[in-house]
């Protein structure tokens, strides 16, 4: 089949050159003949008459004197050229590809689309989501059974704080529930501005911007800055919302191995080399490092100092996802920057969901005014979405006030996390990894059952056994086909500052018993 286009091409070339060649020969011969004739008759005519001979007369003159065979030949030649030019069927190499209307109809008739969603099967089960009634605090009522809650991210226990409830109630009595508009069109309430100011003050940054959904904050912030042609150096282990932000940005993505600074350095050096070769392009392209402070998928800490060093050395901006570390790390709960004793200038943008420590909804980004303001027109999840309901904004403000007034709770939370981690270390069937002060703890099976599916099944059984024993825990759930780097199956535990030592001990004990029973 490869020869077919070649044949077409040669055909076409022959065709064209034939027309052009013959045309040239004919015209040339005509004119040569004409001029010969004219010269010939020139002898019998005066030079002044010469100019009066039109071409048509010239042809006639020529025809009257030329030999007959010559004329017949030339007329035939003219007719042939006319035929070639106007009456030959034009050759379209793709013409045969175009289906007739009947063929189109049959194609349309025969086309069978896949079903909109794949049918349910063993691999594709409906997830059982347990139904929660009442307040989710240290204890939670799951499907009617009261359990010790080691599953939800209520790190600072703010979800069930009476103060916050009262503030939220007052707000509803003044503003109603919804904001009924995007920020641009009468959806900016004074409480949103107030929350943004408080967030900026709390994080010690110039400005903060509030999104109405935690997932949308980072997913909109990244594409607001990074466009096609820009380069993002990104940790392989980032959470799903970050991954969505990365793919929405359409930038060039360079993943480095999870928390592997050597790998990152290598990528940055590579890029530096490329930039030297093409300085014009390098001048235009923005470069970012995207990482999470505490990784949702692993519970470990980012080597932020190293990142900051790279930022200075290579001129790469840092966008840091702080959902888990905000209100957890640092002396006053400001997050990873405070934990590492860095300054706010070292990390350009921090982004966090407000539904973890702050126990409200939405997310925020904080940084320099000039940089953050850019999101107010370019952050799609900010511009085109209704703003956060006012009562959730005041709940957030109140949460920040509480966090500011009692900074001791951050230390307490981290100590409880440490304690629980130690208790878990006694269970020989599991592997506990991650940062020791992280209130989110992933526990993995020490010995795999052989496959991911078997491991998951075992963990599911352990989770349901724990429910029976009155402990609410969950497995870490992922969209397995869509994750960039799928973490191993695990149970995800969350410690709250409200948990007492006894509750944590009891939780660990139940886990130990269940694991021992199931992993024999």
């Amino acid at each position, binding site marked *: 089949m490869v020869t077919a286009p070649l044949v077409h091409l040669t055909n076409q070339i022959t065709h064209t050159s034939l027309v052009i060649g013959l045309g040239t020969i004919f015209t040339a011969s005509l004119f040569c003949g004409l001029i010969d004739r004219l010269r010939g008759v020139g002898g019998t005519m005066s030079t002044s008459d010469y100019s009066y001979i039109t071409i048509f007369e010239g042809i006639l003159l020529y025809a009257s004197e030329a030999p007959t065979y010559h004329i017949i030949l030339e007329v035939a030649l003219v007719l042939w050229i006319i035929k070639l030019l106007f009456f030959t069927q034009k050759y379209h190499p793709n013409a045969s590809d175009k289906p007739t209307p009947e063929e189109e109809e049959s194609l349309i008739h025969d086309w069978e689309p896949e079903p909109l969603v794949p049918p349910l099967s063993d691999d*594709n089960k409906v997830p059982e989501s347990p139904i929660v009634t009442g307040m989710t605090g240290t204890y939670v009522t799951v499907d009617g059974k009261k359990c010790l809650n080691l599953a939800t991210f209520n790190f600072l226990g703010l979800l069930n704080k009476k103060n916050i409830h009262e503030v939220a109630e007052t707000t509803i009595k003044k503003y109603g529930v919804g904001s009924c508009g995007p920020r641009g069109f009468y959806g900016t309430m004074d409480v949103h501005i107030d929350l943004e100011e408080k967030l900026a003050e709390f994080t010690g940054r110039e400005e903060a911007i509030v999104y*109405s959904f935690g997932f949308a904050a980072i997913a909109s912030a990244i594409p607001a800055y990074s466009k096609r042609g820009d380069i993002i150096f990104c940790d392989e282990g980032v959470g799903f919302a970050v991954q969505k932000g990365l793919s929405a940005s359409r930038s060039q993505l360079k993943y480095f191995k999870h928390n592997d600074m050597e790998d990152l350095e290598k990528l940055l050096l590579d890029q530096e080399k490329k930039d030297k070769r093409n300085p014009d392009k390098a001048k235009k392209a923005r470069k970012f490092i995207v990482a999470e402070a505490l990784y949702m998928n692993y519970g470990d800490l980012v080597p932020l100092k190293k990142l900051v060093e790279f930022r200075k050395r290579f001129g790469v901006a840092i966008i840091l996802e702080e959902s888990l570390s905000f209100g957890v790390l640092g002396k006053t709960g400001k997050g990873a920057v405070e934990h590492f004793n860095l300054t706010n200038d070292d990390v350009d943008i921090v982004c966090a969901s407000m539904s973890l420590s702050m126990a409200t909804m939405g997310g925020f980004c904080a940084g320099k005014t000039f940089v953050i303001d850019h999101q107010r027109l370019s952050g799609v999840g900010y511009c085109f979405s209704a703003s956060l309901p006012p009562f959730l904004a005041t709940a957030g403000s109140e949460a920040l006030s509480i966090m500011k007034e009692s900074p001791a709770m951050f230390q307490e939370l981290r100590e409880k996390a440490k304690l629980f981690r130690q208790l878990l270390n006694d269970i020989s069937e599991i592997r506990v990894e991650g940062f020791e002060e992280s209130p989110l703890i992933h526990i993995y099976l020490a010995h795999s059952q052989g496959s991911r599916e078997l491991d998951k099944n075992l963990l599911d059984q352990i989770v349901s056994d724990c429910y029976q024993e009155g402990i609410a825990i969950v497995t870490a759930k992922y969209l397995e086909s869509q994750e960039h780097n799928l973490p191993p199956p695990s149970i995800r535990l969350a410690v709250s500052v409200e948990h007492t030592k006894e509750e944590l001990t009891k939780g660990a004990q139940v886990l130990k018993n269940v694991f021992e029973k199931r992993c024999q």
Partner: protein
Amino acid sequence: MPREKKPVAVASRSNGHVPNGTTEKITAKSKKPQHKETFDQVPLDRAITTYFSYALMIFWGYIWDALRQIGLIKDGHGEATCKDDLFKLKMEWTGFYTRNVYRRMRDCFNRPVCGVPGAYIDLVDRKSDDFNWTFKNVGTKTRCLNLGSYNYLGFAEEKGPCADAAIQSIHEYGAGTNSSRVDLGTLQCIQDLEEKVAEFVRKAAAIVFGMGFSTNSTNIPALVEKGCLILSDALNHASVVTGAKLSGATIRVFKHNDIESLEYLLREAIVKGQPRTHRPWKKILIIVEGIYSMEGSVPRLHEIIELKKKYKAYLYLDEAHSIGAMGPTGRGVTEYLGVDPADVDIMMGTFTKSFGGCGGYIAATEDIINHLRSHSHAAIYASAMSAPVALQILTSMKIIMGEDGTNEGQKRVTQLIENTRYFRKRLKEMKFTVYGNDDSPVVPIIVYQPGRIQAISRKLREKKIAVVGVGYPATSIVEGRIRICLSAAHTREMLDTVLKEFGDICSTLWMGNDTVKDKTS
């Protein structure tokens, strides 16, 4: 729970395609005299003056930027402290646009509100000493007639059954949530809400999410993937565009509400298959909106459904603005146009607008919803809807359905329809160019030039009327507009006041008397 009623012949296929079904060409003219929409050709003089306005602003902008460069003008917001510009924002075109064009009308947007966005809205008075770079609160507030908020059925209320239910749920569940749906985020009230939503939109099942934007942007990727084709209306909302981009599917755009354009794309897609490989598409998803938020237009659902059945495509209907706001009982655009909801595969909508809450839903068959429960990004990774919001929606929905034992809900729906018809009729009598469907509560009045958008917005604000002015880039350059969102909370007197003030202002701006051609399609 209500089940979808489906004819037996189509039960085997979820997109309602009839095997060996009709193949005659569907013409745009074949249907529906009720589909009456006005669109106007932009008159040449308006187009020229509008382009000239923008050109002038851009030209002026370049001069000012040059003066900034050499340090003659020192203004700006926050640049001073941003020394190492790693974000390279200064060379962005958006930056230029913000500095030189958008800034001039910044006072018309993001106006802070300090009260419930009902029929009246309290706006914080603010002033700017530095040409709109920053604003200061003066300390007073103005009570304005609210024609800017999406409060179609007037459920933005600080008291009444909805607010009471929401407040009660704060004490029962807390204000926020901190778990995702697949973990421990499925609160009882969310479960109740989902059942009610399914019943309301007449589908078998529904799932709700905490943010309307994310409902689109995180669920479209769960439905289509690489190798699938999305046919999207040219004026679809940014959330649909984001979702379509994230899905990895191929996106093709058809002209706004243009059935021929859609059919051409459908035929071409099926006949040619995927680009390069020419494999057949896995599936084709048509995405349209119930009411287009900037045009006030309604999709031609009858024709779209015929096409969808003929070509075996799937239909995704985003009813962000139309749910509650269209149809004799507020069931949305399907009810308004008399379309069977079973013919629409995915019905999506938001709770921000008619229900006074926030978040969004997707309603479909049980299979689809079960798939979304386990594959939607938001269901797995994002926190669930907050309980007070769920209760606000649940209560308002029950009122609309008349389950509270009164006809309060029906009264609101009827009031909105009456308000809409009256207001649109009067505007047309006053010879303004009004876009969109005659029954759509989104009323865009075309004023063309950016200067007029600002002037009308500011002058109406002085007259204590709050409206939304929209220009480029949210609309096409020449079609700058004032957008009015009507509400059941508005009374006839309020609307008359607005019409009078609007007419007065526009006559001082040499406006009105536009030649509107009614195009019945």
